[in-house]
């Protein structure tokens, strides 16, 4: 007999095994669509649309090549007059009587996504930290009303806000610019950031700052050198949620951007090949787009639980 302190409430080994197998079953089923995206990205177009769906196939980089290039169809005679293929993708294209005409828009769209998502995350977290500290520590008139106002801005359907923002951006020249999208995503994220971070900063004892101020720190120095280091976990959790939103956002992006500032989410679904959607290329674009966020999730998963409940759960 073990004499562990919590033996009465600990589940038995059998219960655990049963719970574990059910959860694993769910996890495996839920992973199938994701695995299928990655598999499809390495299929040739014919394998991708075969019946029954192929699990074993000859891997091909055609999807990735089609994703990053545009191609034009040529006659075999013309292709013979050309020299040897320029690189891997040209070789794959020539097997299908095509030549690579140039790069596609995927890379610029991806770079837009990176710039807009990271810049707006940094801005939202910075503004959110300052406001959260202000709301947490100082007497602010109408504090509760202001906080509720900040939260309520998140309840608006994006399309509803998109109409006047479209008109406003058109009037001041921000439509289809990265700056416009950064400001927009920052404003959407900042409400979440204030609420999340206020929960975290509320938990940092005021005594730390007060001790620092007795030692001759100003309030601002105490904030920078005492509070900020203590709030790192909260800042990390907030940053993940802001980044996930900004990286994945679609509604504003599809309505407010067309060329210059378009991010990847509106672009990936419109990748088409000859005769319908080019599924291996779409899958390749999707896979590359998912990689950063999956890496991020796995690295920072411990902060997610606290972030999602507005800091309500203590470690």
């Amino acid at each position: 007999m073990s004499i562990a302190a919590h033996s009465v409430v600990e589940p038995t080994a059998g219960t655990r095994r049963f719970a574990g197998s059910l959860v694993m079953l769910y996890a495996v089923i839920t992973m199938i669509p994701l695995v299928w995206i990655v598999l499809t990205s390495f299929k040739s177009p014919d394998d991708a649309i075969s019946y029954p769906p192929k699990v074993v196939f000859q891997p091909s980089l055609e999807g990735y090549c089609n994703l990053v290039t545009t191609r034009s169809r040529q006659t075999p005679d013309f292709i013979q007059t050309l020299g040897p293929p320029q690189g891997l993708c040209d070789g794959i294209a020539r097997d299908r009587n095509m030549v690579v005409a140039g790069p596609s828009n995927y890379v610029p769209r991806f770079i837009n996504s990176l710039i807009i998502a990271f810049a707006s995350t940094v801005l939202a977290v910075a503004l959110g930290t300052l406001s959260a500290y202000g709301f947490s520590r100082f007497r602010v008139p109408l504090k509760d009303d202001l906080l509720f106002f900040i939260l309520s801005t998140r309840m608006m359907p994006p399309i509803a806000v998109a109409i006047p923002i479209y008109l406003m951006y058109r009037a001041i020249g921000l439509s289809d610019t990265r700056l416009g999208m950064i400001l927009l995503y920052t404003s959407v994220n900042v409400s979440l950031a204030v609420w999340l971070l206020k929960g975290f900063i509320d938990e940092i004892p005021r005594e730390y700052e007060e001790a620092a101020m007795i030692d001759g720190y100003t309030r601002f120095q105490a904030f920078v050198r005492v509070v900020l280091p203590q709030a790192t976990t909260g800042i990390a959790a907030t940053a993940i949620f802001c980044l996930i939103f900004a990286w994945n956002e679609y509604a504003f992006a599809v309505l407010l951007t067309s060329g210059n500032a378009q991010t990847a989410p509106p672009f990936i679904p419109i990748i088409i090949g000859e005769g319908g959607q080019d599924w291996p290329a779409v899958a390749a674009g999707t896979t590359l787009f998912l990689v950063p966020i999956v890496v991020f999730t796995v690295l920072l998963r411990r902060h997610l639980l606290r972030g999602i409940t507005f800091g309500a759960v203590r470690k």
Partner: protein
Amino acid sequence: MNDLSATSQIAYQAALVRPRVVRRIRGLSDQALAWLFITPTIVLLLAINIFPLIWTIYLSFTNYRANRPNVPMRWMGSDWYQSILTDPDIWSAMQVTAHFVFWTVVIETVLGFGLAFLIDKKFRGHGIWTTIILLPMMLSPAVVGNFWTFLYQPQIGLFNYVVGFFTGNAASSFQMLGDVRLSPWAIVIVDAWMWTPYVMLICLAGLRSIPDYIYEAAEVDRASKWRQFWSITLPMALPFIMLAVLFRGIENFKMFDMVNLLTGGGPGSTTEVASITLKRAAFESWRTGYSSAFAIILFVTVFGLANIYVKALNRVKSR
């Protein structure tokens, strides 16, 4: 101990701060600093959220069309509101939205709570499996929703193949996205797949917040496991479950991206949730005034329902 070691470090670091910066900031009272910290956020929200909202309210009383900015504007009064509230198409969009919100919230809550309950048994390796389960909610609803149209293809799609394999119907005998009876469920399935983990996370937080000593006391009183679940686990996790329902309810009421790419509202208007109706009116028919009025109606609805719900939530919490 932390305080003591911090003190000497603080004194050291204070000496390093440039005097000019110190003088400039020391002059600020706490009140001034509070406003300095809060104002940028408020200004940004006023400029990009509140100003457009007020503009929307104004436009909703006019016949403005964004694609014809030169046509003089005419004041419409509350005409748009009246025509929207009596429009059968709008009511059908609201019904589609209600069906979508209701079933996604029910399925996600049941599955999410069940999973959280199982994960809370802390079986070996539960951390890794939890992370795997979380993945779908991290992904872009638009990009992944688009890929589901491939999985739902009648002849070549994996979903149809698997369903056909297990039910014995031919994979091409049903169309998830093309059939008026199935398409409302097609969007529910994808949303449940994506967002069950979110509900699971919140429920898990709730279950972890229940202290062990309550269960120990129940064991001492010889309460059955079944009784413990209904009298301890569920009531104590209820505020968290309700929070999850609130978040999912608001999000799905606004749902646009996933449905837009999966079905675009079709076939016909069987999956045309409110946001898609709104987008069609605003950015395809360019009826800016009309769609502004509809936007305001939607916003008031979410806002009102959320407020009522939060009141109920607070009552449960304070119990």
